[in-house]
């Protein structure tokens, strides 16, 4: 099932959700078999920021019945070391590279875009407008006015395809997506995690080191499907749909809902080869409904 996305030819519509697959670590753990069976048709990096970040204090994970809450907090080496140390390694992965970026101000984002613009290793950029784990993280991705303003300023600073990653915490994701589109975004991706909180067992104190975090996994699937339907019918640019995808039935539903690509996130943690299983399952539409895989 080859698919075209922002001018890039992809072998199938299954990619990873940013921050849910460290491909460099996986290559060390799984070796050649990982590269030979690369699970995604394009690889989306964990979000990078201008300055290095240690991320949030542990604990960073809370398990739910049908998902989890994370408060990872975008740990990363920062732009300079990403470019110096990781970019060439990512370039050897057998899939086009989409780099996810986040900034705490327009200037930060512009600095990142300009540093990455000339890099041929990078096929596209994903603008993370929606991380609930950093302060003010998801305003841009949930407010049409903020989103349009931000996108307009950024557009001039990169020729690469730009994907705006939207926040689910809005009653009108369609308006936010339309704002991104009108300001020049080449695609939108959704949903990011839903803000949520859990108390440590037997206490009234937050469990997560950062206090609160973002919910992902099957618990958010119905939210994702609803928002992807709403956004896909409102914009012309392609949509990357994600949220709670466990099997090819879920992926097919997001494709039917209008997504061009589908990203797998939390399910990677339960099955490192989830991407392979899901894209293979898409190729067999007949069985997939009865026995989703």
């Amino acid at each position, binding site marked *: 099932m080859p698919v075209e996305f922002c001018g890039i030819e992809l072998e199938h519509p299954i990619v990873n959700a940013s*921050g*849910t*697959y*460290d491909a460099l*670590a*996986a290559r*060390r*753990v*799984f*070796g050649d*078999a*990982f590269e030979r*069976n690369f699970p995604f048709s394009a690889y989306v990096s*964990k979000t990078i920021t201008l300055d290095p970040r*240690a*991320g949030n*204090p*542990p*604990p*960073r*994970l809370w*398990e*739910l*019945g*049908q*998902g*989890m809450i*994370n408060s*990872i907090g975008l*740990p990363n080496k920062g732009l300079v070391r990403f470019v110096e140390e990781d970019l060439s390694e990512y370039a050897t992965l057998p899939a086009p590279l989409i780099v996810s970026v986040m900034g705490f101000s327009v200037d930060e984002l512009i600095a990142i875009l300009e540093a990455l613009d000339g890099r041929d290793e990078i096929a596209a950029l994903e603008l993370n407008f929606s991380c609930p784990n950093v302060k003010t993280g998801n305003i841009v991705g949930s407010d049409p006015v903020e989103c349009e303003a931000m996108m307009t300023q950024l557009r001039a600073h990169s020729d690469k395809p730009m994907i705006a990653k939207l926040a689910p915490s809005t009653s009108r994701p369609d308006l936010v997506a339309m704002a991104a589109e009108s300001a020049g975004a080449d695609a939108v991706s959704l949903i990011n995690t839903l803000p949520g909180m859990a108390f*440590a067992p037997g206490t009234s104190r937050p*469990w997560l*080191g950062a206090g609160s975090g973002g919910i992902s*996994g099957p618990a958010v699937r119905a939210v994702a499907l609803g928002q992807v339907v709403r956004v896909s019918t409102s914009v012309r640019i392609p949509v990357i749909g994600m949220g709670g995808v466990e099997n090819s039935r879920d992926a097919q539903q997001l494709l039917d809902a209008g997504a061009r690509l589908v990203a797998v996130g*939390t399910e*990677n*943690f*339960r*099955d*490192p*080869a989830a991407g*392979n299983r899901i894209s293979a399952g898409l190729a067999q539409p007949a069985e997939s409904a009865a026995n989703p895989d």
Partner: protein
Amino acid sequence: MSVVARPQAPFGRRIVHVTDRRVAGPYVALTARDRGGPAPLAGQFYMLMTPTTWGGGADGRPYLPRALSFARAVSTADGIALDFLFEGVGPGTDRLMEVGVGDELLIAGPFGNGFALDGERWPVLVAGGIGLAPIVALEDELRELDGVRATTFVGMRSIDHASAAGLYELEHELATEDGSAGHQGYVTDLVKAHLEEHAESTVYACGPAAMLEAVRVLCAELGVPSQLAMESGMACGFGACYGCVVPTKDGFTRLCVDGPVLDGSQLDTALISGAPH
């Protein structure tokens, strides 16, 4: 330095069949036949779940797979016989308690670094409670290296818990908290006495965070190297999620790929907030 290179985990997860199940006090030991994976190193671990009804426990959990050390790995003509030892402490291990002979498990791994053996120094092995699992594996590994004899200390809550060591015919000195067998008190009392006599040791320990912290402090004071097999909540086990970090002198470290065994000297404390137990 470890004498064996870290083995590569097969990509993805695989089904293994349970061939044996034994009970020792509150603990259960499952043996699973792994036809797809390599021989693991002591201290490495696997991510486990059941293919059916994983979920449906308290709050609908478990959802994520659970990290379990292997306690013994025996190569057979028919794959590796992997032993897992655990106690029901929550929805994940409660579900694993229900697994019987003939049932299937889904596993991924072996993951993590394993203990780094130091051939020069006397290996002193310290297990607390369910921390016994990787210590049994390490004792096996050392026994296979000709000539290496370890001294092993085991701390348990009671004689009932201590019966788990019997499953593996582990030669050891025992401490129980209630004094129902062996030394009454903490295992670290025994370790302390030993190290004060034998400073040429290296300590390899696994157990509750408080025990690991006592071991770390003791070793630091006596100038004895320590390798601590630690725990933290894990979602993936292969470095994908960044959820399992623990604070070290070098900042936050992913315990699943840079651990679970950390050198005591890397740590300011082994008391990790949010560690499983």
